């Protein structure tokens, strides 16, 4: 047990280290120079003495005037102290503060949509497997849903429910007429604005999970134990229950692996609905060439995904004791 988690933690630590290093490397090894870009934005050219002074000043401010190895160490040092730099776009707010305001919206959007789509998708997929008419309706629907780009489903929902039918608002996290406060009308407004982005994330995830479960159940029903039970005359329900339990395990792994995709989906969904989470910030950061904000968002996404993966790992061990043996035994 201890060895299993020790190994897992090592992988996570390595992943975090690599991701953070990538985060540090990209701006420094890409063509172009953030400081120059920043100065170019306010149309300061390189020729005058004043601009050279500005360039030197900003290079020093962002710590770009020391050797690379030193920059790398400073970067880690700042990170450990919770310093992600200052946002250029929302100057002079520190990036950590900007992120803090955005994260609750992401959690509110992602946690329910991931969990619900996983639960409902698995239930539906299990129903659909090997039942002719359900399979002929649920499966194509599931495939169409997983094939849908997140933002397009978002655009479609926003257009139908927001513009054509006027049922839901399509922008922001709460009504523009309100200030955040603890009242029923504000909570209602929050929920109203939350529903459409949630629904589009839920639907795409639902399709993928349902398909995954359907295929797994079909494989399970082909397995020897299912045939054996059938030959013994066991009721269909019992066999299906066994198949469902066995198929659930790969689905948990699948959930961990699909997190990155879901997070990316949430980013664009937030852009469509102007929902003020990390995705929306990221877009603002990109449009304003706010490198510190972009880096901060990236780091935050990494930490979130790693954390979620870890939770899934723990859940997996609790559900299936075989993994412990599998991990320490080193089989494929």
């Amino acid at each position, binding site marked *: 047990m201890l060895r299993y988690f020790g190994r897992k933690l090592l*992988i996570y630590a390595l992943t975090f280290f690599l991701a953070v290093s990538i985060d540090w490397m990209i701006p420094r090894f890409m063509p172009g120079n953030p400081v120059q870009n920043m100065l170019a934005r306010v149309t300061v050219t390189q020729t005058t003495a004043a601009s050279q002074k500005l360039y030197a000043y900003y290079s020093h401010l962002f710590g770009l005037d020391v050797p690379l190895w030193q920059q790398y160490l400073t970067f880690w040092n700042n990170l450990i102290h919770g310093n992600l730099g200052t946002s250029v776009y929302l100057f002079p707010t520190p990036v950590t503060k900007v992120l803090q305001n955005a994260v609750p919206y992401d959690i509110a959007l992602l946690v329910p949509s991931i969990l619900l789509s996983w639960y409902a998708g698995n239930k539906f997929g299990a129903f659909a497997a090997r039942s002719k008419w359900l399979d002929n309706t649920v499966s194509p629907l599931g495939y169409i849903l997983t094939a849908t780009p997140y933002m397009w489903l978002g655009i479609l929902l926003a257009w139908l429910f927001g513009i054509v039918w006027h049922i839901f608002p399509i922008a922001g996290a709460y009504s523009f007429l309100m200030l955040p406060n603890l009242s029923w009308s504000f909570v209602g407004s929050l929920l109203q604005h939350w529903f459409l982005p949630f629904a589009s994330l839920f639907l795409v995830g639902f399709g993928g999970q349902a398909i995954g479960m359907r295929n797994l159940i079909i494989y399970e029903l082909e397995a020897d134990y299912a045939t054996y039970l059938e030959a013994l005359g066991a009721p269909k329900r019992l066999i299906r229950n066994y198949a469902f339990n066995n198929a659930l395990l790969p689905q948990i792994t699948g959930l961990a692996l699909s997190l990155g*995709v879901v*997070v990316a989906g949430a*980013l664009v969904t937030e852009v469509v609905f102007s929902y003020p989470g990390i995705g929306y910030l990221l877009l603002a950061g*990109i449009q304003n060439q706010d490198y510190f904000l972009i880096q901060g968002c990236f780091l935050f996404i990494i930490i979130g995904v790693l954390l979620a993966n870890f939770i899934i790992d723990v859940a997996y061990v609790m559900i299936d004791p075989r993994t412990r043996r599998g991990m320490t035994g080193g089989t494929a």
Partner: protein
Amino acid sequence: MNNPKKTNEFVYFALKNKKVLLGFSIILIFVLLGLIGPMINHNKPLDYVDPTGAHPPSADYWFGTTFFGQDVFSQLVNGLQATFLVGLLGGGIGTLMGMLIGFVAGYRGGIVDEILNAFTNIVLVIPTLAVLLIIAAYLQVRSVVTESLFIGFTAWPWAARAIRAQTFSLRNREFVDLARMTGMKSLKIIVTEIAPNMLSYLVLTFILQFGGAILNAATLDFIGLGPTNTISLGLMMQYSVLWGALQLGSWWWFIPPGLAITIIVGALYSMNVGLDEVFNPKLREL
């Protein structure tokens, strides 16, 4: 393993499988649309052919015009070319990288496998799109080809993992042992003995990578990090949302690109399921 009779059998079942046929015909139709479209419609996708605001579909402009008077049909057919290029190139690179790492890790085993596997697991956990986002954000000029390269080089871990597991199970089979005993080089064993035996698997992997690359490209384009010098389906969606097509009710602007992506990727998935049934006789009935 490459006897002609077996290949014929696969072709026979593939041609009888409705899912394969449906998926394949849809893809073919869209490929043709992307190739022939620009020939029958001479409007350049980014030219302002009718700058009098957004017009609904008409005889002149089959899919209407954008807010700036660009021809939506022309954008769509030209965007399809970019979509297929990204799918082929990005999906192809992803599959090749996956094969390279999967074959080596699975066949070699031991310490090589441990290292490659750890590396794969690490890259698998990092949300690749986030990496793509920052790379793209720092590149000032981007083309469809660079976009495909980046997508391909970040999409391989899935493929590598699956191919490694398959190679692992084939590695100790008798015919591979036999080949090893005859003194065949490792590379040759992988190419002539192992790869043909999991060809079906590789085909399915490529199809999934193809679809994944298209969806990833759409996401990148939509967030404003797509190619800077051309049109694509994702860029069409970005422009439509950016210029208020939703509020103005210009549905002909944002529905076609997303619908095209959904249908293409859906058709790929359908082909994937159908081919799975073709290759795996156990799934064929029903």
